[in-house]
C-alpha cells in the first residue's frame, strides 16, 4: 500500500500543476469552463490526498512497520489513540497533514464561492494549488511519508513519551488548521489584487475563514500552553520559545485583521492596511511552519543542513516580494472611500487596537528572529529570553486589554464627549473600585503591572456587562420579552457584536490568570529526604515516602517507560490537609547497547510526570528529579551490565526491579520543583470563553432571516428617508 500512497502524491502534484494552468488560462482568456476545471482540481486534490492520508493512517493502525515513519514513531504497544495521532508526529506525516488540511479548507471555500467572484476565485485557486503543490513537492522530493524498509522491523521505536498527552495530539491538527486557513485569505487577497477587484465582495467571502483561522490557531496555542504546563517539568505555560512565538504572530495579525475589516466593510477605509494584514498573516503562517521544522533557531548551522529550509526560504521570499509588488502596484484602487469622522469613534479605537497588535507581533518577531539577524549582521549568535519579551509585551498587553474595554462603549463614526462620559461611568467605577480594594488589602503591593491588569480587566467586564445590560433592556422594551429570552434574541440578532464582546471578556480573564500566576507565584527548587517538609507560599509540603515501579506493572499508558521513580507529597495549609501529590520521573530505553545491558534500559531521556492539585483559586504543582546515580544504584547497574547479556532485556528488568527495591529501601534525597500559582485555571477558562465567543461571532444567520431583513430594511430605509 505504500506504492498507492506514493502514487497518490505524484498524482496530487500533477493535479496541482494542471489546476494552476487551467485556472490561469481560464481567467486570462475568459473561458469560464477552464476556470471551473481548475476549481474542480482542488476538489480532486482533496480526494487524492484523503486517499494518501488514509493509506498512512491505516499503516499506523495496522502496525505496518515496513513504513519507515511507522517504525520511527509508533509501536505495537502504543495505545490506539496515540497510534492514530502519531501520523503527524513525524516531519513527513505532518507535511501530509498540512497539505491535506489545506486541500480540504480550499475545497470548502471554493465550493462556497463557486458562483461568485469568478476572476478573483480563479487566481485564488491557482495560488491555493501553488501552496498545495509546494508541500506535496517537499514530500515527493525530500521527505516522503511512504518510504519503506524491506524486510520490515518486527517492532517500532514507539511514540516520543513527551507527546503522549491528549493536548499534544490534538494540538497539531488545530494548529495546522489555523495555518492552512490563514492561506485562504492570503490567496483571495492576492486574487483580488491580481484581478483588480478589491471591494466588498472578497472581504465578505473570506471573513469567516479568517475568523476560523483565528479560532483554530488560538485553540492550538492554548493546547500547546496546557501541554507545556501539565507535561513538561518546568512549571510554566509560556516560555517565549521560538516555536510558541511562531504560532502567536499570525494569530496577532489575524486578530488585527478581524477588527480592521469591520472598518473596511462599514466605511471602505483601510484597504491597503487590510490587504497587507492578510498577506502578512499568511506569510507568518508559512514562516511558523518553516521555523518549526527547520531547526534554524536551535542551531544556526542546521539551516544549511536542513533540506527543507532552503525551499521554505525561497517560498517566503516569493511571498514577501510578490505581496509588496501587488500592494504597491494596486495602491490607486486601494484608496479609502471615506475618512475618519472623529477621533472619538469606534473606528479610531480599532485603529489603536491594530497598532498595538501589530506592535506586539513586531516585538515578538524581532525577539524570535533576533539570533538569526544578529548572526547575519555581526557574525555572533545572540538570543533574547523571557525577561526581554516581558519588558515590551506586558505594557502593550495592558493597552490592548484597556482598548478592548473602551471599544464596546464608543459608537461607530462619532461619539460625543457627553455620551462617552456617561458610558464610561460604570466601567471606570468598577476599575477604580478594584484598584482601591487591591491597594487597601495589599494584594497587589509592589506588582504595578499586575495591579494595572486587574483594574483593566475589571474595566472590560464593566463595559461589556453594561453593553449586555443595555441591549437586553432595549430588547425587552421593544419586544416585551423576558430577560433570558431577550438576551438570547439579542445575541442571535447581533452575533458579531455580542460574540465579539464575549471574546473580549475571555481575553480579560486570560490576562488576569497570566498576571496573577506570573506575579504572585511562589516557587521552590530544593532537595528533600523522606519526612522533610518545606513551605511554599502559604502551603506546607511534606515528602512522605518514595515511589518506584517498573513496567509492565506500571505504565498503563504504554509509554515504554522501563522504570519510574517518584514521591508521595502531602500538602497542607495552616495545618489542614489540602491534597496528596505523586510526581514521578519516568526512565526510558536509550537503544544504545554501548551503555550496557542494564544501563541502556534507563539511559534514554527521562520524562517528568508532573503532579498537581488544580483549583479555582490556585494550582499546587510539583515535579521531581530523583537521583539514580547514588553509589548503591550505580553499583547495581554496573553489576548488571557485567553479568546480563545485552540480548536478555527481561533479565535486565530484574536488575531494574532490584534498583527500584533499593530506592524504596534507602531513598536518597530528591530534587523537587514546587510551585503554588494563583488563578492559573482562569487562563484555560478564559481561553474557553474566547473561543465560545469566536464561535458565536462566526455563526451565520439563517439565509431566510437575511432575506426578510433585507426587504424589511429596504422599506424602512425608504420610510426613514420620507420622514427626513
Amino acid at each position, binding site marked *: 500500500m505504500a*506504492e498507492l500512497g506514493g*502514487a497518490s502524491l505524484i*498524482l496530487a502534484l500533477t*493535479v496541482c500543476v494542471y489546476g494552476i494552468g487551467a485556472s490561469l488560462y481560464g481567467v486570462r482568456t475568459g473561458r*469560464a*469552463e477552464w476556470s*471551473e*476545471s481548475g476549481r*474542480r*482540481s482542488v476538489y*480532486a486534490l482533496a*480526494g*487524492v490526498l484523503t*486517499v494518501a492520508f488514509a493509506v498512512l493512517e491505516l499503516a499506523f493502525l495496522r502496525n505496518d512497520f515496513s513504513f519507515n515513519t511507522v517504525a520511527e514513531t509508533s509501536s505495537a504497544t502504543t495505545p490506539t489513540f496515540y497510534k492514530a495521532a502519531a501520523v503527524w508526529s513525524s516531519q513527513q506525516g505532518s507535511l501530509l497533514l498540512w497539505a491535506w488540511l489545506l486541500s480540504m479548507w480550499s475545497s470548502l471555500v471554493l465550493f462556497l464561492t463557486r*458562483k*461568485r*467572484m*469568478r*476572476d478573483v476565485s480563479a487566481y485564488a485557486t491557482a495560488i491555493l494549488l501553488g501552496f498545495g503543490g509546494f508541500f506535496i513537492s517537499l514530500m515527493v522530493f525530500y521527505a516522503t511519508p511512504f518510504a519503506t524498509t524491506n524486510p520490515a522491523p518486527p517492532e517500532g521505536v514507539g511514540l516520543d513519551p513527551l507527546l503522549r498527552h491528549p493536548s499534544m495530539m490534538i494540538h497539531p491538527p488545530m494548529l495546522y488548521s489555523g495555518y492552512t486557513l490563514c492561506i485562504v485569505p492570503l490567496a483571495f487577497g492576492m486574487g483580488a489584487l491580481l484581478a483588480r*477587484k478589491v*471591494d*466588498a*465582495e472578497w472581504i*465578505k467571502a473570506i471573513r469567516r475563514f479568517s475568523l476560523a483561522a483565528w479560532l483554530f490557531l488560538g485553540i492550538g496555542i492554548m493546547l500547546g500552553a496546557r501541554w507545556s504546563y501539565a507535561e513538561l517539568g518546568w512549571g510554566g505555560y509560556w516560555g517565549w520559545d521560538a516555536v510558541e512565538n511562531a504560532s502567536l504572530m499570525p494569530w496577532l495579525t489575524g486578530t488585527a485583521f478581524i477588527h480592521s475589516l469591520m472598518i473596511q466593510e*462599514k466605511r471602505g477605509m483601510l484597504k491597503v492596511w487590510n490587504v497587507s494584514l492578510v498577506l502578512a498573516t499568511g506569510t507568518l503562517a508559512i514562516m511558523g511552519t518553516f521555523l518549526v521544522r527547520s531547526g534554524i533557531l536551535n542551531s544556526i548551522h542546521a539551516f544549511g543542513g536542513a533540506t527543507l529550509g532552503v525551499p521554505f526560504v525561497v517560498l517566503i521570499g516569493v511571498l514577501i516580494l510578490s505581496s509588496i509588488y501587488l500592494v504597491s502596484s494596486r495602491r490607486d484602487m486601494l484608496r479609502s472611500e471615506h475618512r475618519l469622522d472623529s477621533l472619538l469613534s469606534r473606528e479610531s479605537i480599532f485603529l489603536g487596537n491594530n497598532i498595538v497588535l501589530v506592535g506586539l507581533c513586531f516585538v515578538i518577531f524581532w525577539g524570535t528572529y533576533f539570533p538569526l539577524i544578529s548572526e547575519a549582521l555581526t557574525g555572533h549568535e545572540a538570543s533574547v529570553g523571557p525577561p526581554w519579551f516581558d519588558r515590551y509585551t506586558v505594557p502593550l498587553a495592558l493597552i490592548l486589554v484597556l482598548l478592548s474595554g473602551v471599544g464596546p*462603549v*464608543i*459608537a*461607530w*463614526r*462619532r*461619539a*460625543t464627549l457627553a*455620551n462617552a462620559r456617561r*458610558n464610561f461611568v460604570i466601567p471606570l467605577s468598577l476599575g477604580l473600585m478594584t484598584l482601591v480594594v487591591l491597594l487597601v488589602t495589599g494584594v497587589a503591593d509592589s506588582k504595578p503591572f499586575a495591579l494595572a491588569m486587574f483594574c483593566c480587566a475589571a474595566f472590560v467586564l464593566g463595559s461589556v456587562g453594561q*453593553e449586555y445590560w*443595555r*441591549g437586553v433592556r*432595549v430588547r425587552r422594551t*421593544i*419586544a416585551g420579552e423576558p430577560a433570558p429570552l431577550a438576551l438570547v434574541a*439579542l445575541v442571535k*440578532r*447581533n452575533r458579531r*457584536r455580542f460574540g465579539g464582546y464575549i471574546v473580549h471578556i475571555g481575553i480579560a480573564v486570560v490576562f488576569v490568570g497570566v498576571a496573577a500566576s506570573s506575579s504572585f507565584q511562589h516557587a521552590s527548587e530544593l532537595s528533600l529526604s523522606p519526612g522533610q517538609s518545606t513551605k511554599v507560599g502559604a502551603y506546607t509540603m511534606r515528602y512522605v515516602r518514595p515511589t518506584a515501579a517498573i513496567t509492565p506493572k506500571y505504565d498503563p499508558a504504554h509509554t515504554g517507560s522501563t522504570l519510574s521513580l517518584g514521591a508521595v507529597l502531602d500538602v497542607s495549609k495552616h495545618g489542614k490537609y489540602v491534597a496528596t501529590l505523586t510526581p514521578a520521573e519516568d526512565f526510558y530505553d536509550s537503544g544504545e547497547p554501548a551503555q550496557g545491558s542494564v544501563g541502556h534500559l534507563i539511559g534514554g531521556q527521562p520524562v517528568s510526570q508532573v503532579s498537581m492539585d488544580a483549583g479555582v483559586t490556585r494550582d499546587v504543582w510539583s515535579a521531581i528529579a530523583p537521583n539514580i546515580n547514588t553509589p548503591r544504584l550505580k553499583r547495581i547497574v554496573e553489576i548488571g551490565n557485567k553479568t546480563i547479556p545485552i540480548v536478555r532485556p527481561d533479565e535486565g528488568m530484574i536488575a531494574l526491579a532490584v534498583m527500584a527495591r533499593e530506592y524504596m529501601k534507602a531513598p536518597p534525597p530528591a530534587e523537587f520543583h514546587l510551585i503554588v500559582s494563583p488563578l492559573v485555571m482562569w487562563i484555560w477558562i478564559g481561553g474557553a470563553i474566547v473561543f465560545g465567543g469566536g464561535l458565536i461571532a462566526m455563526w451565520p444567520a439563517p439565509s431566510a432571516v437575511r432575506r*426578510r*431583513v*433585507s*426587504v*424589511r*430594511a*429596504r*422599506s*424602512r*430605509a*425608504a*420610510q*426613514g*428617508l420620507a420622514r*427626513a
Partner: protein
Amino acid sequence: MNGLAVLLTLVLLAAVMAVVSRPLLSARKPDESDTPEQAELEAAREAKYREIRDTELDYRTGKLSGEDYQSVNSALRTEAVEILDRLDSLGHEATDEQQEATGEQQEATGERSDV
C-alpha cells in the same frame, strides 16, 4: 508496485480525470448566478444594513446622541437606497420582492427595531 496498488491508482486517476474534465466536456456553461457588479452591490447592501442596525443599537444603548443618530442614520439610509437603486437597475430584487415589501409595510406598525 503490486497489482492492487496499480489498480487503485488507475481508479484514482480515472476519478480525477472525470472530475476535472467535466466542465470542459459539458455543453452547459458554468453558472455564475450574479454578475460581478451585482455581487459587489449585494455585499455592499448587506454591510449597509448591518451598519444601519448597529447605528440603531448604538443609539438605543446610549452611545449616540439623538442628533448624531438622526444625521448618521439618514446618511446610511441614503447610501442604502442608492445601493438598492443600483441593484434594481441591474434587474435584481424584481416585482416579487416589491410585493413582499408592500406586504411587510402593511405588517409593520411604525418603526420596528432591528435590535
